[in-house]
C-alpha cells in the first residue's frame, strides 16, 4: 500500500504554482490520487442516477446526454436552497488566507488544493452561468464555460477535500470549503460520478444498517469475540443486549468500532464502562452505524441514512441516545439530525441515570456524546480509575475535525484522558483544537488507492505527532473518530512508526477498575501492562 511511496519524494514539495493559468491546466488522473468510481450495483441500490461501469482514466465518462442541463439545473436548485452556497459563491475576495491552511496543499503543493481555488472550480461555472458580470466579462471576471473537463476536475478535486473545515476557521468571511465540496459532490452525484469508497458504505448502511455490511447475525458473532476478549483480560463477563425494547438508552457507534483494529478496543471500553455502571441500554443491529457516508454524498443521502437512529429509538421506546466516538457522525448528529429527522419529541431530554446530570446542551436532539457522558461520570466520582495502568503509554490527543470545528467538543475528551492516564502531552497550538489537522483520509478518502494523497494530506498531522514524539516520547495517539482510528494508523505507520493509535475509551477500559475483576496483567489489547525492562521506548 505505502511501499511504493518514498518519503523523500513526498516531501519534495513545490509550492510555486505553474506559469500556466489554472483554467488551462487539465487534470491528470494518476494512481494514488483518485478513488475508484462507484459500482453500478451501489448506485442502483440507492436509486442514484446513471449507474454504469466507467473509470476516471477513460476519455469517455459515459455522462448522460443532457449532463450540462443536469448540472446547471442542479446548481440553480442548490443556490436557491442554500444561502451558504450562494453567499460563498459571491463574497470570496481571494485574499489567499486559506491557501496554506489546507493539509492537502501543505502536503502536496497542488495549487488547486488551495481552498480558494477549489471553490473557484465551481465558482467559475457559477459566474459564467448565473451572474451578469461573469456572462459579460467572462474570464476577466474568473468565469468559464461548463465542459466535460470541468466535471473531471470537480471529480478529482472534490474527492481531494476531506471537508475538514480548517480553512473556514481562517477565512475572514467564514467561507466553508466543506460546504462547497458537498455541493460539488451533490452535483457529481446527479451525473452518477461517485466514488465507491463512499457509495458502497452508503449502500451497505442503507441495507444492513452499517457501512461494513455487517448483517445482524454477524454483528452478534463479532460481539461474542469482543466479550470473550474482555473476559479473558479482566475476568468480567459482560452480556449486552441488542434490539431490546424498553431500554432506557440506545447506544450508537460507528461499525468500525466493533469490526476493525484498533476501534474494537474502544468498543470494549464502551462495553466495560456501561456494564460497570449497570446502564440500562441497548445496541441496535438496525441502527448499527453512527457514521454517515451520506455526508460525503448528498444532503438527501444524509437524511436517508440518518433516519434510522430516531426510527429505531422510537421503535425500541428508549428515552434518549448516547453516541460513540466518531467524527463526521457527530457533525451529522449535531448539525443535521434534528433538523432533518426531528423533532424527536418521543424521546426525553437526556439525564444521566448515574449522576442525575441533565444534559442541557442536548435537550432537543436528545443525543449525548459519550465523552460528555463519561466526563460527567468522572467529575462526579462515579468511576474507580487506576490511571497507572496506562503508564507505559505517553499520550497525545488528536482533535478530530468535525467534533472540533462543528461542535467544539475539546475539553471533554481531554478531561477524560487526564483522568485515566498520567502522561499526556498536547500537540503544538497551531495543530490542535479548532486548528487541528485532518488525518488526510476523512470524507470518504480513506481508501488504499488514494494512498499518495492520504500520506501527503496527513503529513501536517503526522508532523505534529512527530514533534511530540521527539520532544516527549509520545507513543500513543488518541482520537475520537473511527475514520481517524483507521487512517491515522496507516499514517503513523508511514510517518511516525513508533506511535500507535487509540480511542479515548480504550484508555478508559484500561484504567477502569471493575467490580469482580481479576488482577490486570495485560491491557485491553492483551499486551503486558508494564513494559519489560530494556524494551522501554520512552
Amino acid at each position, binding site marked *: 500500500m505505502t511501499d511504493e511511496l518514498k518519503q523523500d519524494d513526498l516531501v519534495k*514539495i513545490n509550492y510555486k*504554482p505553474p506559469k500556466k493559468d*489554472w483554467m488551462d491546466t487539465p487534470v491528470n488522473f494518476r494512481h494514488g490520487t483518485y478513488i475508484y468510481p462507484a459500482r453500478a450495483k451501489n448506485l442502483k441500490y440507492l436509486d442514484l442516477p446513471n449507474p454504469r461501469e466507467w473509470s476516471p482514466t477513460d476519455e469517455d465518462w459515459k455522462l448522460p446526454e443532457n449532463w450540462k442541463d443536469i448540472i446547471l439545473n442542479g446548481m440553480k436548485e442548490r443556490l*436557491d*436552497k442554500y*444561502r*451558504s452556497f*450562494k*453567499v460563498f459563491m459571491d*463574497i*470570496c*475576495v*481571494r*485574499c*489567499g488566507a486559506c*491557501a496554506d491552511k489546507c493539509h492537502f496543499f*501543505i502536503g502536496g503543493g497542488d*495549487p488547486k488544493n*488551495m481552498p480558494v481555488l477549489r471553490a*473557484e472550480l465551481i465558482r467559475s461555472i457559477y459566474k459564467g452561468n448565473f451572474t451578469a*458580470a461573469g456572462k459579460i466579462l467572462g474570464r*476577466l471576471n474568473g468565469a468559464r464555460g461548463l465542459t466535460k473537463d470541468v466535471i473531471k476536475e470537480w471529480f478529482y478535486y472534490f474527492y481531494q477535500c476531506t471537508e475538514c473545515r480548517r480553512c473556514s476557521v481562517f477565512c*475572514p*468571511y*467564514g467561507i466553508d470549503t466543506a*460546504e462547497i465540496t458537498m455541493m460539488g459532490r451533490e452535483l457529481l452525484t446527479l451525473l452518477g460520478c461517485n466514488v465507491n469508497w463512499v457509495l458502497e458504505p452508503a449502500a451497505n448502511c442503507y*441495507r444492513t444498517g452499517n457501512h461494513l455490511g455487517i*448483517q*445482524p*447475525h454477524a454483528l*452478534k*458473532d463479532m460481539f461474542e469475540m469482543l466479550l470473550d476478549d474482555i473476559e479473558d483480560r479482566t475476568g468480567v463477563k459482560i452480556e449486552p443486549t441488542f*434490539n431490546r425494547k424498553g431500554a432506557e438508552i440506545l447506544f450508537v457507534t460507528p461499525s468500525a468500532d466493533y469490526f476493525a483494529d484498533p476501534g474494537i478496543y474502544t468498543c470494549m471500553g464502551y462495553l466495560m464502562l456501561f456494564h460497570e455502571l449497570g446502564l440500562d441500554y441497548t445496541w441496535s*443491529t438496525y441502527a448499527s452505524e453512527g457514521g454517515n457516508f451520506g455526508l460525503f454524498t448528498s444532503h438527501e443521502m444524509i*437524511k436517508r441514512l440518518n433516519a*434510522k437512529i430516531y*426510527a429505531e429509538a422510537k421503535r425500541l421506546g428508549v428515552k434518549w441516545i448516547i453516541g460513540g466516538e466518531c467524527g463526521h457522525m457527530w457533525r451529522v448528529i449535531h*448539525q443535521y439530525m*434534528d*433538523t*432533518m429527522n426531528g423533532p424527536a419529541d418521543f424521546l426525553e431530554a437526556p439525564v444521566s441515570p448515574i449522576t442525575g*446530570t441533565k*444534559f442541557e*446542551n*442536548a*435537550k*432537543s*436532539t436528545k443525543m449525548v456524546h459519550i465523552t*460528555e457522558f463519561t466526563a460527567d461520570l468522572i*467529575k462526579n466520582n462515579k468511576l474507580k480509575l487506576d490511571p497507572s495502568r496506562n503508564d507505559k503509554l505517553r499520550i497525545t490527543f488528536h482533535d478530530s475535525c468535525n467534533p472540533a*470545528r462543528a*461542535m*467544539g*467538543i*475539546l*475539553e471533554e475528551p481531554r478531561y477524560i484522558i487526564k483522568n485515566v492516564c498520567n502522561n499526556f502531552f498536547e500537540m503544538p497550538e*497551531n495543530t490542535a483544537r*479548532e*486548528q487541528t489537522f485532518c488525518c488526510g483520509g476523512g470524507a470518504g478518502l480513506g481508501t488504499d488507492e488514494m494512498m499518495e494523497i492520504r500520506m501527503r494530506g496527513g503529513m501536517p498531522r503526522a*508532523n505534529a505527532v512527530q514533534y511530540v514524539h521527539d520532544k516527549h516520547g509520545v507513543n500513543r495517539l488518541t482520537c475520537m473518530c473511527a475514520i481517524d482510528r483507521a487512517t491515522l494508523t496507516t499514517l503513523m505507520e508511514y510517518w511516525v512508526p513508533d506511535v500507535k493509535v487509540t480511542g479515548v475509551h480504550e484508555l478508559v477500559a484500561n484504567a477502569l477498575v471493575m467490580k469482580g475483576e481479576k488482577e490486570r496483567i495485560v491491557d485491553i489489547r492483551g499486551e503486558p501492562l508494564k513494559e519489560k525492562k530494556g524494551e522501554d521506548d520512552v
Partner: protein
Amino acid sequence: MKLLLAFVIVLVLSAVPYIGIKYAGMSYEFGVIVPYAAVAVFILGFVYRIVKWAKSPVPFRIPTTCGQEKSLPWIKQNKLDNPSGTSGVVGRMALEVLFFRSLFRNTKTELKDGPKLAYGSSGWLWLAAIAFHWSFLIILIRHFRLFSQPVPYLINLLENVDGFLQIGIPTLYITDILLLAAVLYLFIRRIAIPQVRYISLVSDYFPLLLIFGIGLTGVLMRYFYRVNVIGVKELVMGLIALKPAVPADIGSLFFIHLFLISTLFAYFPFSKLMHMGGVFLSPTRNLANNNRMVRHINPWNYPVHVHTYAEYEDEFRDKMKSVGLPVEKE
C-alpha cells in the same frame, strides 16, 4: 496581463472625466448625472444583492466552532468563538466585522528540512486589512464635512484625532497615508506571493487600483494641486438638496476623483466588494452553536426514501432469529 488590464481600465476611467470636462464641457454630466446614477445603482444594487441572498434559506445550522462548546456546567465555554446564544453571536460577529477576528488567526506555514512544518503567526495581511478598512471608513466619515451644513461636532472631533500630528498645512491626515500604504501593500502582496498571484483575477486587481486612484486624487487635491473646495462643497450640497448645480472652476482633478468614486459605487454591488454585506450573512459565523439545544427548521425539508426496520427485518429475520435477536414478526 490581468494586472496590466486592470491598470489600463483605471487609467481610462481617470481619463474619461478629464477629457469630458476639459474638452467637452460636460461638467453637469460628470458632476451631477454620474454621481446620482452611481449612488442609485449602489443602493439599489446592494439591496438587490442582499435580497437575492436572503431569498435562499439557511436550511441547516452550520457554524464553524472555534472553541469549546457549551456542554457540562463545569466546562468553560468559549462564548465568543463558539457562541450558544444571541449575545455570543453578536459578540462574535462584532469581532469579525470590526476587528477581522478570523483573519487575525492567520498563520504562515513553512516546510523545513526534516521534514518539519512550522506555523508562524502572520499578522501582516490582517494589519493591512484593518488599516485599509478602518482608514477607508474614517475618510468616508470625514467627507461628511462636505455633505453637511452645519458640520456636526463629531466630524470635527474625528478630523482632529485623525490629524493630531499637525504636520503640514493643511494638516496631514494619518488615514490618508494609511489607506494608500495599505492598498499598496495589499496590491504588492497580490503580485509578490506566487500563490496569491495565481488566484488573482482582473476583478481582484481592479478595485485595489481603483481605490488607490481615488485615494491618490484625493491626496493630490488636498495637499498638492488644490481644487476649489468651496465649489466642491457647493456642488455636493446642491446634490444632496436635490437642487444640483455645478459651480465653475472646480478643477478637473476633482472630477477624476468623483468619477472614480462613482465607478466604485456603481461597481460595488456586482463585485466581490459585496463581502461587506455578505459577511453578515455567512452561516458559519452568524449562527449560534446551540444545535442540540434548539431545533433548527429547514423550510424545504422533504420526505425521503428510507430503508425501514420492517424491510430490514424481512430481509434478515431468519438470521436474526438464529442468533436470538428479538424480532417483531415471527
